[in-house]
């Protein structure tokens, strides 16, 4: 190693240094990682995120920078301004954003724009796609995703927000929407909401899922029937999460995704496994960021005349966190690859070529949920350890680890809880009876 270099490490090298091993990633994935880490660490350092968190101010300039570097269209086709890559690459991008220090706040600021556009791509009309997708890709519009309701929780089938098709005042068909969503991330800064709502009473349809439909609705704040309330929360405070209230809110009938009612659940589940992969990546990024910080502090901080990292009580939990992060990384990119393979095989079977080896939806679901579970748990463990390694300083905002620790609860709760993943694996893999 060059002496000339170690004496003055150039800034452009320090910015892409991380603890994760990168064997077996593709050159494209590594280019994305390199570029995102450089972009984030030079333009949006930890001070930016500390400030945004402390003042609950939206990272608007960050969203704009990611959009203008062309990253929001990572998993959309070139015809809509995208790069035509897969969820594996999108996961790498989300991980690298979180890992740069931006954490979950950075990830959540763009998450829905990357993920909620997937179901649009597959199910929306050409007209809707060409209207909405290029604007999301270039950053001129942002979207949010509204599924969760206060009265339904993880039991999505019992959601209560209704959308009723009617003849509007100007003779055009409209939907009138009433109900409440909760935890809608980025609602305050979004231009559109992808909304899951009930279009029939539960009893009126053969199976409960057939009562739900998915919409892509412009958020027109001049309508009285739309109000939002910011939810004060534990972490990721830069990014808002809101209660969104609809009272006879009117949207043009063309906002129904896929053109037929009753397909909402099918469309949402299509994108779910992709979202699990992205979240697993975000959790990994958070975990590696915290671990790296902890390890460097443990090397420098001297107590009892030696670096604290010399004590195995400090070193071993950090070493264990690294081993678990590496394992969760393999699970995550394995799931993302399966997702991409299954999407590719859907595309080729649509033109009459069957790929018999492609993973089934169930296999993808098991892999994606397992990866999200693993990554979320180890991210939390790594963040907790990072705080403890810092002692009292771990509790100080200045050291960043408390911010990441607060954020590390999110991947354990959303978009699906740990318990529901264990329920899913119990039922689908082990064949155990359903408990609920």
């Amino acid at each position, binding site marked *: 190693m060059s002496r000339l270099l170690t004496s003055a*490490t150039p800034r452009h090298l320090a910015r892409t240094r991380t603890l994760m091993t990168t064997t077996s990633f593709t050159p494209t994935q590594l280019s994305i990682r390199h*570029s995102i880490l450089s972009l984030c660490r030079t333009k949006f350092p930890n001070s930016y995120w500390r400030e945004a968190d402390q003042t609950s101010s939206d990272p608007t300039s960050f969203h704009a920078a990611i959009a203008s570097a*062309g990253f929001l269209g990572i998993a959309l086709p070139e015809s809509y301004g995208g790069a035509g890559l897969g969820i594996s690459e999108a996961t790498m991008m989300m991980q690298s954003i979180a890992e740069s220090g931006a954490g979950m706040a950075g990830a959540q600021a763009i998450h829905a724009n990357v993920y909620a556009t997937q179901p649009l791509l597959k199910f929306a009309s050409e007209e809707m796609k060409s209207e909405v997708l290029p604007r999301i890709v270039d950053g001129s519009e942002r979207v949010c995703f509204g599924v969760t309701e206060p009265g339904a929780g993880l039991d999505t089938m019992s959601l209560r927000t209704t959308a009723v098709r009617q003849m509007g005042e100007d003779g055009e068909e409209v939907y009138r929407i009433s109900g409440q969503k909760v935890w809608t991330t980025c609602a305050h800064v979004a231009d559109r909401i992808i909304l899951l709502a009930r279009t029939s009473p539960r009893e009126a349809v053969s199976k409960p899922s057939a009562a739900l439909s998915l919409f892509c609705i412009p958020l027109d704040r001049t309508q009285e029937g739309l109000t939002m309330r910011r939810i004060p929360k534990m972490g990721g405070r830069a990014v808002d999460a809101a209660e969104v209230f609809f009272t006879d809110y009117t949207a043009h009938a063309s906002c129904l995704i896929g053109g037929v009612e009753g397909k909402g659940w099918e469309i949402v589940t299509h994108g779910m496994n992709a979202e699990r992969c992205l979240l697993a990546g975000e959790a990994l990024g958070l975990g590696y960021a915290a671990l790296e910080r902890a390890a460097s502090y443990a090397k420098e901080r001297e107590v009892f005349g030696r670096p604290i990292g010399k004590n195995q009580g400090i070193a071993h939990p950090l070493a264990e966190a690294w081993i678990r992060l590496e394992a969760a990384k393999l699970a995550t990119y394995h799931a993302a690859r399966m997702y991409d393979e299954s999407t590719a095989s859907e595309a080729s079977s649509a033109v009459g070529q069957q790929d018999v080896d492609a993973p089934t939806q169930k296999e993808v679901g098991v892999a994606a949920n397992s990866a999200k579970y693993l990554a979320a748990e180890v991210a939390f463990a790594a963040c907790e350890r990072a705080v403890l390694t810092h002692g009292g300083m771990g509790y100080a905002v200045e050291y960043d680890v408390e911010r990441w620790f607060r954020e590390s609860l999110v991947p354990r709760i959303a978009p699906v809880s740990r318990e529901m993943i264990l329920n899913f694996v119990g039922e689908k893999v082990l064949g155990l009876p359903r408990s609920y």
Partner: protein
Amino acid sequence: MHPTSARLLNILVPIKRTIDYAVKIRVNPQNTGVDTNVKHSMNPFDEIAVEEAIRQRERNKDAIKSIKVVSIGPPKASEVIRSALAMGADSGIHVEYPDSAPSPEPLAIAKTLKAIIEREAKEKNAPIDLVILGKQAIDDDAGQTGQMLAGLLGWGQATYASKVELDASGKSANVTTEIDGGSQQLKGQLPMVITTDLRLNEPRYASLPNIMKAKKKPVEKLSPSDLGIDLTPLLETIRISEPAKRQAGAKVETVEELVAKLKEAGFKAA
């Protein structure tokens, strides 16, 4: 102003794939070399060279016609070519040698570059006006290629550059270079060889569309024999070993004690 009829400039940027700067270098168990089964990336000084070429084009928009990168290396050197293309270079040349071949010495690299430069002029009608390359590669730290190339070509050279001002129409360059204890200003006519130092610039990140476009940019693959070059090293490496472990020092409490210890060790006042 009349549109100038002057020929537009072509820049060549030689780049090397090296062991990543963050990897701890280890000697292999056979003591024949270092362990190369580790992360590699573009030599950091070469990244600065690519960046400089792109910045020169941004500054002198219409005056620079092409930025071509060339890497002489094993199959995987194509990865650093793609990275340079993603940053904004237009095309690449990969002079490939097998993984099993020993790594070539600076003189062989300089001769290869000279052959490429001659080929660009004769066969491609794209004579190179400026070569920008790293002052050294962080693997062998030889720091000789740029100077040898300038010597072989009979071109001017400005080494360890920290600032480059190109006068595209006057076909000259003002270069600030780093020297011991300060800097010096050099002015030279093109064609010219410039080697880059750390302070020259901070390389950019590639945008996603540029990463995607890079996959489609042309990369020409050549073998050393296509250029009439033999890369066989002139030197034989007999043995590579770790530097001897440094002995732990002792702490002294006072200046007197220090002086006493120095005397003990045989040091005398001059």
